[in-house]
Every structure is written in structure tokens, then in C-alpha cells.
């Protein structure tokens, strides 16, 4: 386990800012305790310092996971956000997409969101903006990338993709082994 280097921190923050914008400050600087990011086996974990100090008692190969896994760095040092970060993205999300109950299950199986399944979308969403996907009952389902701006969403035909799927809570069952 080690702290992130500057380049790694930058890559991670850039990825996160796509979804939560400037609210990353609230993750870094929390009023209720010191939380930090640590890298272990190419995965980034977010944990309080108390947990960190406890985790130092484990050897590198025996330690599986600490705190919450935000995502991992690929072999070419690109940061990939995992569904396990949803709990921290959802409350700070800048752009949200609500999905109709019918299309919910489709999204949870890993498919993209079509115009026909789109319930609501925040105004002024840019194209390829990171969005958090909610159900109509305001339950966060996952996150994705907006395929069209809000304007365009109004104009396109019902079978075109409006949100590209990136991660959904169904992955907790589908990708159990690789999520740590």
C-alpha cells in the first residue's frame, strides 16, 4: 500500500471531476475526519486514517481490500472508476439522469439507456458528460456518460442511446470476483 503519486492523483481527480466537478474538495477535506486515498495492487482505496493505521498490520499479499475501492489503474496508467465508488459519487453528482422503471432492469443488466427509457435529465448536460443514473425513486443505480446533450435528447428518436453505461449496481453480482 502506498500513497498516490502526483500523476496518479491528477488522473484520478480528473476522472472524478467528470462526475462530481468541484465537489471533490468535499471528499478530500472532510469535517468529520481525515480520509485519504491509498494505492494497493493498482487499486485506489478511500479510507479514514483510523482504518489505514489498522491496515498497516497486514502484509501486502495478505491484504485484500481497505475502506472503499474507488477504481483501479490499468496497465497503461489510466484510471477506471468502479461501481464501488457510487456511494461517494451519488450525493455530490452534478448531472443526473433518471430512468423509467421499465428501463431500469435493462440498465442493471449492463445495457445503455435509450431515449425511450429516459425519465428526466438535468438541464445543460454537455455531450460526453459524466452522469449518475438514478431510478425514479431517487435510488442511485450507477453511472455513465451522456451520449447527447439535453437539447439533443429532446429531439432524437426513441431508440437512440442517450446514456452510455459505465457501471451499475448489478455488477456487484456479475463481477463479484473482480471488484475486490
Amino acid at each position, binding site marked *: *500500500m*502506498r*500513497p498516490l*503519486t*502526483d500523476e496518479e*492523483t*491528477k488522473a484520478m*481527480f*480528473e476522472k472524478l*471531476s467528470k462526475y462530481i466537478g*468541484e465537489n*471533490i*474538495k468535499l471528499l*478530500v*477535506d472532510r469535517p468529520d475526519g*481525515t480520509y*485519504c486515498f*491509498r494505492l494497493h495492487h493498482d487499486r485506489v482505496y478511500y479510507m479514514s*486514517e483510523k482504518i*489505514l*493505521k489498522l491496515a*498497516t498490520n497486514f502484509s501486502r499479499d495478505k491484504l485484500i481490500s481497505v475502506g472503499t475501492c474507488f477504481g483501479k489503474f490499468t496497465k497503461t496508467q489510466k484510471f477506471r472508476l468502479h461501481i464501488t465508488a457510487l456511494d461517494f459519487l451519488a450525493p455530490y453528482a452534478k448531472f443526473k439522469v433518471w430512468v423509467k422503471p421499465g428501463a431500469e432492469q435493462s440498465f442493471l443488466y449492463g445495457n445503455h439507456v435509450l431515449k425511450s427509457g429516459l425519465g428526466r435529465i438535468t438541464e*445543460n448536460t*454537455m*455531450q460526453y458528460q459524466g452522469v449518475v443514473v438514478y431510478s425514479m425513486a431517487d435510488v442511485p443505480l450507477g453511472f455513465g456518460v451522456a451520449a447527447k*446533450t439535453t*437539447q439533443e435528447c429532446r429531439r432524437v428518436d426513441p431508440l437512440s442511446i442517450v446514456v452510455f453505461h459505465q457501471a451499475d449496481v448489478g455488477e456487484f453480482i456479475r463481477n463479484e470476483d473482480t471488484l475486490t
Partner: protein
Amino acid sequence: MAACSVEELLAKAEQEEAEKLKTISVQKELDLDFDVGNLLACDKNRIESRDFKEQKKEDFLRALARDNTQLLINEIWKLPTERVEEAIVAKLPEPATRLPREKPPPKPKPPTKWEQFAKLKGIQKKKKTNMVWDETAKEWRRRWGYKRANDDTKDWLIEVPQTSDPNEDQFAKRVQAKKERVAKNEFNRLKNIARAQKIKTPGVGLLPRPKQSKDELSRAVSVAKTSTASAGRFQDRLPKEKPPKNAGKRRKFEPLIGDFSSEKQKQLELLKVMDSKRPKLDITKAVNKQMREEDREEAASKKKGRKGGAAGRPKGKGGKGKGGRAGGGKAGGGGKRRGKPGKR
């Protein structure tokens, strides 16, 4: 009758003996030259061409060979014999004739670097004795090799010199120096061999082969780049070449539980820098705004009618242009529209 037959038998036996001897003894004009060590017999007798043509050639040759072989074997029988496992073996003398070379003679080796230098300077090789008197062991020891005299790696006590670091291991230092000398010697020896056989050696990097592997080539490039006076820091790169990934240098990380507040500060600063770098005006946002305005105007003009629409559109465009540009100006950033606000 019996006496007759006995006489006959005796006569027969004698005749047979004579014949045998005849077969053993061969008459030649000139004696043969024998090299019994090589089992060689040279016959210098002239061959009468008449004899050769007269008889059948095969028979003549066979008879000749038989005679000469018989003479050779007679010579072998003259040598001292011994018995080896139920066989009588003759001890052959040393071969007298010198056989020619099987392979061509070795080419002279080109002189090594030292030999060239010695020739140049006129340095003669001084004969040194193998044994040297070792004071400490009080005996004669080899000059080099196993248990040599004056071996400094085998000292049990080494004084630490004044100028050196007190925590340095002097014994390890000596052993290390020895290893380096041995490696250097080996390297020079191999270089001499390569020079002698004109084998191409890679200097650093590539061996001359028809197909090089990708990482060999990249390593050669990186080595060539770093071998400049400033270790490759100011070397130009090709347009699409990526910066080197710091191969070979051990990475250093922050301690795991460092100062949390300083870590937080660093991260916040990084965020601030990232925020400032992000452009304040989004081109796409401005374009979207423009599009929305256009839609609104079209809807409005359609209601009014054609004429009104025709009049309204250029006005609308002008108005929109102003509004858009003013909006751009207000937002205070933006690439494309900066120059324009002054004009209108």
C-alpha cells in the same frame, strides 16, 4: 612297396615344404623399403611392360601385391613378439615416414592490444619466477593463483585510512575491487578474441542481426540518448516519440502514514490548479445557447408570418450576434470570440 610309398611320401612332404618355402620366400631384384611402424613397404623394382602386357593384367597385379605383402609380413615376423590373450602380437617400432598434415596450418593470431603496445614501445617480456617469498607466511608461494603470496583480500586486519568513511567496510571494498579487476580482465580478453576473429561486438546496444526485436531497438535508442554530456535531458524527440518512462531508476514514494494535513494541502492545491486550467467558457455551451436562441426565433418568426420573418431574421441574427458575443465577453474566457466585441 611300403618303402616305396614311404619314400614317395617323404619326397612329397619335401616337395611340399619346398613349395611352402617358395611361397614364403620372394625373389626381388631390389630389396623393398620397409617402414614397419606404418606397415609400409615400398617396391622400387621396375615393372616390365612386356610382363604387364603379356599376362592378364589382374593376375599380374594380384601376384605382385601378394609378393610384396609376403615380404612385409616376413619383416613383421622379424620383430619381437608377445602374447596378448591367445594372440601373437608384434611390437611395431616407431614410424619412420612423416605423414602430411590433415588440416591446413593455423593462421598466425593477430597481436592483442597489449602486444601491439609492447611492440610499439619496445617492451621486452621479462621472465618472472613462479614462486615468490611470502614474508608473513615465511614460505615460498605462487606469484598468482591458489594460495598466492601477498593476497590483500586475505588480510585479517586492515587499518582504516584517515580519509575514508568510518562506516565503510574495508574488507568488502577490497573484495569488490578484486572482482572488478577480474571482470575487467575477462572483458579485455574477450575483446581481444573478438578483434582477432573479426567478430562484430555491439559497443552498447545492437548486435548486427538482420531482424532486431522491438525492445532491443528501443533500449539502444534510450542508451544513445542518455550518452550525452547532460544525460539526455536536452535531446530533441521525434514528433510522435513518447518520453522515456524512467527505466532503471528506482521510484521513491511518500511514506504510507505521512503528514495527513500536508497531503490534504497538496491535493487541494492540485484541485485548484486543475480548476484554473479548465476553460471558463465552453464552446459547446455557447453553441448550444446559440442553437436554443435560433429555435426560439424560428418559432416566433413562423407565428408572425413570412414577411415579418424575413425582416426579423437578419435583425434577429444581428441581435443574436450581439447577445452571443456579449455573453461570450461576460463569461470572460473563450477562444474564438475574443477579438470581436470591439467591432460592434
